[in-house]
């Protein structure tokens, strides 16, 4: 096991100060479910881990007017147990239920999932689906960045040394909107997503789509909303044919970016099915 220093920060201000230290290369530690696995094989690029997992300001889950605020150190288990998020962010709660297993859910955090930048992350598609902003602090100040804009490629983010994601905010979805998350793994727990889909939507009083979000994960090197799919849904009446057409469009959009890879033969079929299924869950009115 490689050697490095460890310090636990008690506040965001202290964490930011520690991360800004030019004498010692520091990296935030939240749940440790990624960084501690990585250092087993790759020599660490840091000299110190700054533990942010117990900073009270980073553990909040609350409604602030028309926005929901979720701290970056909130664990998946805390998300699952939040009545507020069950009501306002079903897709995020569903994703949290499907992350790893109980041990990962107890330790892993939403901020860590974004900062790790994995294309197969389960926590990130729901955030993008919810139009979440990541609030980032460093010694120079604070900024808010759409989560999708923080991601620059597989295991790459726009975060700079000294940056700390403190929390996420996202607008409360329109009235009657629903969201969902579907995960496809090779087994039922402790599985890396082969594909996943976060989706949300709402219908007008006439039964036409007025709001749609479609965010497949593990599909593109850089996660984003599939706006081309969302646009074709807007104004339409939900139907099996519409869901299937949207699914096909999602596959087409994926392949347009990735080209034909070793997994494309499989993923283009599976993604169509998953997107159609997600939209069916979002738009099918229960009797």
């Amino acid at each position, binding site marked *: 096991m490689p050697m490095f220093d460890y310090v636990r920060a008690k506040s965001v201000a202290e964490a930011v100060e520690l991360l800004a230290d030019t004498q010692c290369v520091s990296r935030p530690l939240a749940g440790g479910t990624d960084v501690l696995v990585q250092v087993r*094989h790759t020599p660490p690029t840091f000299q110190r881990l700054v533990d942010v997992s117990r900073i009270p300001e980073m553990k909040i889950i609350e409604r602030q007017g028309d926005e929901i605020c979720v701290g970056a150190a909130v664990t998946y288990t805390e998300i699952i147990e939040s009545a507020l998020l069950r009501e306002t962010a079903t897709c995020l709660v569903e994703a949290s239920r499907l992350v790893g*297993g109980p041990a990962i859910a107890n330790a892993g955090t939403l901020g860590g999932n974004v900062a790790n930048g994995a294309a197969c992350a389960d926590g990130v598609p729901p955030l993008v689906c919810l139009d979440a902003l990541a609030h980032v602090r460093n010694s120079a100040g604070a900024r808010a960045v759409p989560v999708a804009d923080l991601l620059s490629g597989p295991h790459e983010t726009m975060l700079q040394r000294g940056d700390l994601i403190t929390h996420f905010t996202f607008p409360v979805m329109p009235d009657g909107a629903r969201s969902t998350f579907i995960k*496809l793994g*090779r*087994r*039922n*727990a*402790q*599985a*890396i997503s*082969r*594909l996943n889909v976060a989706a949300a939507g709402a219908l007008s009083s006439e039964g036409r789509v007025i709001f749609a979000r479609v965010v497949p994960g593990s599909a593109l090197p850089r996660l984003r909303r599939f706006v081309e799919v969302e646009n074709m849904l807007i104004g339409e009446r939900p139907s099996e044919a519409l869901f299937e057409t949207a699914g096909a469009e999602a596959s087409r959009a994926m392949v347009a970016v990735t080209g034909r890879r*070793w*997994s494309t*033969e*499989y993923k283009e*079929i*599976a993604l*169509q*099915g*998953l997107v*159609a*299924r997600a939209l069916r869950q979002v738009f099918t009115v229960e009797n």
Partner: protein
Amino acid sequence: MSHITQPLEYVGRPARRVDALGKVTGQAKYIADYRVPGMLHAHCLRSTMPHARIARLDTTPALQVPGVRAVITSEDFVNHGLYGFPVRDKYMLAWQKVRYVGEAIATVAADTPQAALAGAQAIVCELEPLPTLFDARRALDPDAPQVGPDRNDGQHPNLKGDHMLVRKGDAETELANCPIVLDRRYFTDWQEHAYIEPEGVLAMPTPEGGVVVYAPNQSPFINQGNLAMVLGLPANLVRVIQPTVGGSFGGKDDIIYESSAQAARLALITGRPVRMVFSREESLVASYKRDAMHMDIRLGADRDGTLRACWFRGILDSGAYASETPFTAWRASIHAMGAYRYNACDVDVYCVYTNNGYAGAFRGFGNPEVCFAVEQTVDELAEMLGMDPIDLRLKNCLRLGDETAHGQKLNESVGLIECINTVRRISDWDRRRAEYSRQTSTEKRRGIGVAIMYHGMSLGAEGADHAGATISVLPDYSVDLTSGLTDYGTGSRTVYVLIAAEELGVNPDRVHIQRPDTNTAIDSGPTVASRSTVLGGNAMRAAARNLRQTLDLAAADLLRCDPQQLVRAGEAYVGPDEEAVAWEKIVDHAREMGLILSAHGKWEAPKIVWDHHHGRGTPYMAYVYGAQVAEVEVDLRTGNTQVLHIWAVHDIGKVIFPQGAYGQLYGGITQGLGYALTEQITYPEGYIQETNFESYLIPTSVDVPEITAQFIESAYSYGPYGAKNIAEPSLVPTAPAIANAIAHATGRRVRELPMNLERVLLGHDLQPPFSRKPVEAALKIPPRSMPQTAPRVYA
């Protein structure tokens, strides 16, 4: 001494596992927990090429690394450490050549694990690539690169041992005359044992110049023999002790013997204890696997569903070394036609060398592979004939009095029909089968499938088949047992305690069992082939009966009566005056009489006759039987398969330790589930890709379905109390039952294992681009020392 006829007191009744408490409280000690003063740590330098000549090997730079105490190579062993059974083809450390990625070349002992690793990294090892062979189906081509050692018997050097065959009548002619013939090709992939405890050994030098080795062996006696041979020591100076073992499933054979020899030599050189413990990654790269098998099968039948002929050709890819796989090939050949009657049968199995890692023993030992092929083909036949798959099996399966395809008359303990009928009833087969045949959903569909099997007990014609046991009364009136057979977690220690308690008429709490130690236990052959209950159980029963005889004599003397007049009241003895005398008093009296309160027992399996040249005979003393039904739900959009329920009914003879037997069955089904759906080892260009449990996917608790299990206790007269066995057979029918359920759900056959997302959805597998990175990370190899260009590939 069965003169006192009483119902069984402990055998077949609920009992607590003797090792349960120690394991759940963390008190059980495994090799990785052992720490002794002055202990050194060992680390291996391993091959980075699938086939290469060792052009240069200079260990002196390693000795310059601070903390390094010794480095060894093949030169440090007698005859370069050549060993192996049944084919002597492997070295304790590679000599002249390496044949797979991960093969051990040199071993360093140092003060710390870090220094040992640094020492291994400092060794100068230049490898010159040799032509490689990865396609087992091409291994016996005249121009295939030679991977195996030279042979002087005219056989292809890439053939391991002899090719295995079974012959009955003229299968080609019989097939030509069958109105229905199916011709199918199947493939089963490598499987990793995934024992929870990776490999570890601890060797300690003795003042006499010998060595004591603690190792989780498949057989401590084979390890002892190997060590004496390669270290050049008399056997009495080599002692092997079995610690608590964290699972084996057949996987702790050669790889443990090799590690033991390396640690032992280093201990002898340095005069200090040497421990070597593998990381999970090193374990996955270096250790042997279940073989991959390519199978062609033809079944011929009449239109009424009567099976007439089976033709089978199997090529067993067992990689760079033989290990036990010539025996695997033999067991595969015996079971290739399934548990059915035929007029004619023609089976050939070839076990071949390649540069794909290497294969060895693994639970089921060839039968899971062939069962996957024959049980799907039988199912397809039912489909073609419009018959219910269970009806077709009932029509053709082996019954009491039948003769097997090998020519063995089944005279007793054939519970297969009862297994099939029971599993049909408890799974509500007919209703579910009919209901699921009417589905129209394009999203998810359910299916239900069946597979049956038989499995030869113990070693059969592989070789001498006997076991020994000892029993003694200690000064505190506890009873002490030894067996030469190991409990890897199977429950055999509890089985032996229950048998000894039953025979002696004492409470099981009084009975304790040592772990195998070559200085105290009797060589009982390897703990393999699900043989512990029958072989070890019979030996323990004989030992306990011998001791009981002595105690009965003492009791008769004390109570002044004939031994026949004695009865037991709990542990106490009661004579004609009807006064109960405590067991301790009888022990005291026996000691006063000068009797020795220890005994041993031995049991040898009935003689086996097998003609390897003509493929005829009696391959095993008897068989266990089983039938499993799987219910699945297949996602037609993604290929994701959920197994909803498994019903399993197995004829294992008398059940001795019920919780242990059910535990074996549930565990075997779980391992079979992984084999069926998710467990996949790939060796593109010889480099294993799956080096930890994030990529090698064994089932989690939420993948395991509800299991409804039942035993048919069809007594076997040679088994202790009529017992047979369960360890391996539990896994054998699971994958084909799931495959048949998938076919029922989707209407499509998956003929390759594992039936992963891609195979179920597309009908074929997809392979990601190959990478050396997993091996590089697993072996902690600095990237510069990995080969920069791909080795030449044959095919």
